[in-house]
């Protein structure tokens, strides 16, 4: 299969008055179409920075990012989900979900609007389209945030710890929700998380990063058989094996530093 997203020898340094900090060093990996990849690593290692690079919000110091064979520009359609849903409290759910269309000046585009309605109906938010975010539960809000990105038919979805602000119970069910939406819509997704179980339960592959300056430490393919929901994947006997593997990779990392 051809590589859909390619990060080619990416390095990035930050400049501050105190000096230059190398955040990413020679990051090199690729993601296939419709694949779900997670990135885990010690906190502060630059996981979010990698997403910002893919989204085109930051430019690498060296190396390049190619999506579908092309360089990322302002017009590349990218879906970005954050830790918090970032719904605008002064807009109704419908207006929140369609803000991307407004930005792209497609507010009157019939096809896009039909897709919005279809997504809202399919994922149980149609009845709440005139509600305001503060009237909804955390899970529903996160689903709305996902639909907001899907409206623009993103080429790739970037998830930056989107479940970490939710309580454990909600987190498990929202994980299932989001995972099923992403699979149904045939989206390619990259998830950044510090939660190893979350990463294993959702992804096809896991990229383990080293501490700063971050490099790709190892890439672990997760094979838990047929398509299953994240919750069921957590029950698989192989699950704990993968957990140990990645846990060890990450704790090695800590020992080396101390």
């Amino acid at each position, binding site marked *: 299969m051809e590589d859909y997203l390619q990060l080619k020898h990416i390095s990035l340094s930050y400049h501050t008055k105190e000096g230059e900090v190398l955040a990413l060093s020679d990051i090199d990996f690729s993601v296939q179409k419709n694949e779900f990849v997670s990135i885990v690593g010690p906190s502060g290692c630059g996981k979010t920075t990698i997403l*910002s690079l893919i*989204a*085109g*919000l930051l430019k690498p110091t060296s190396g390049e990012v190619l999506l579908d064979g092309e360089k990322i520009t*302002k*017009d590349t*359609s*990218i*879906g*970005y989900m*954050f*830790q*918090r849903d*970032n719904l*605008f*409290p*002064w807009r109704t759910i419908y207006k929140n979900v369609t*803000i*991307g269309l*407004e*930005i*792209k000046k497609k507010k009157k585009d019939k096809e896009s609007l039909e897709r919005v309605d279809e997504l809202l109906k399919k994922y149980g938010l149609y009845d709440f389209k005139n*509600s*305001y*975010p*503060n*009237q*909804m539960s955390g899970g529903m809000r996160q689903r709305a945030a996902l639909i907001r*990105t899907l409206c*623009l038919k993103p080429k790739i979805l*970037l998830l930056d710890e989107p479940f970490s602000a939710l309580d454990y119970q909600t987190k498990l069910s929202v994980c299932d929700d989001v995972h099923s939406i992403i699979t149904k819509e045939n989206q390619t997704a990259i998830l950044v998380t510090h939660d190893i179980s979350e990463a294993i339960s959702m992804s096809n592959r896991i990229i383990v990063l080293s501490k700063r300056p971050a490099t790709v430490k190892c890439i672990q393919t997760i094979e838990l058989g047929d398509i299953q929901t994240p919750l069921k994947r957590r029950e698989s006997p192989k699950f704990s094996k993968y957990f140990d593997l990645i846990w060890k990779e990450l704790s090695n990392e800590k020992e080396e530093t101390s």
Partner: protein
Amino acid sequence: MKKRKQVNYSKEHKRYLKNLKIDKFTTILAQVLLLVVLIGLWELLTAVGVLDAFFLSSPSRMMVQLVDLFQNGSLFYHIGITLYETVIGFLVATILGTLIAIILWWSRKLRKILDPYIVVLNALPKIALGPVIIIWVGAGTMAIITMCILICVVITTLSMLSAFLSCDEDKISLMRSMGASKFQILTKLVIPNALGEFVSVLKINVGMSWVGTIMGEYLVSKAGLGYLIVYGGQVFQLDLVMASTLVLCILACIMYLFVGILEKRVGKHKE
């Protein structure tokens, strides 16, 4: 989801609601009583001669004065002039201050360059500019409005700028990831996000614009409530001073109420 109003409350809840009502009622009652007692005492003590009505005026004398002003037609004339100056000053300062804040939000460089100037302007007592204003725009209504604008505009700029800058970085990144231009980020995110702060600024400006106008009228005026107060003071007519002050209180209250209504509309949907 918000819960619908339930009809069948438990006894405890009914008692709770009743207590709430009683609490609210007694508060308002005490507020009214306080006012009545103060006015009553004032009237009583001046009537029996414990306090000198010449220095303190009295509620009845204030009323007589107001009726007098009303009958010779000058009450609404003076109110009209002061109100006109205040409202114009208030509107111009609010709009101008917000526009300056938008420009400063837009350009980080300009913000950095102008920062010390704004700080100094904010600290400067604007009344000190009184003579300069009179020379530049003439001793008339324009001078009063200019004073009013000067007093409100700096604080408006500072408050709005800090509201614009406090916009959540994640939300800005979100807009950028969807390909939003800077102008779109401004109009769709930064400005609506600062609406709550804008209402607070309006509230501050209601108070400040009255300060500006009355101060302006103290400096130069031929009419208006500030003029009546200064004039009353000069001829030792405390009735006039007190009556005009009372009218000012009422006007400021009304303007504040308007902003209050606006606040309720804006503040409906917060995070």
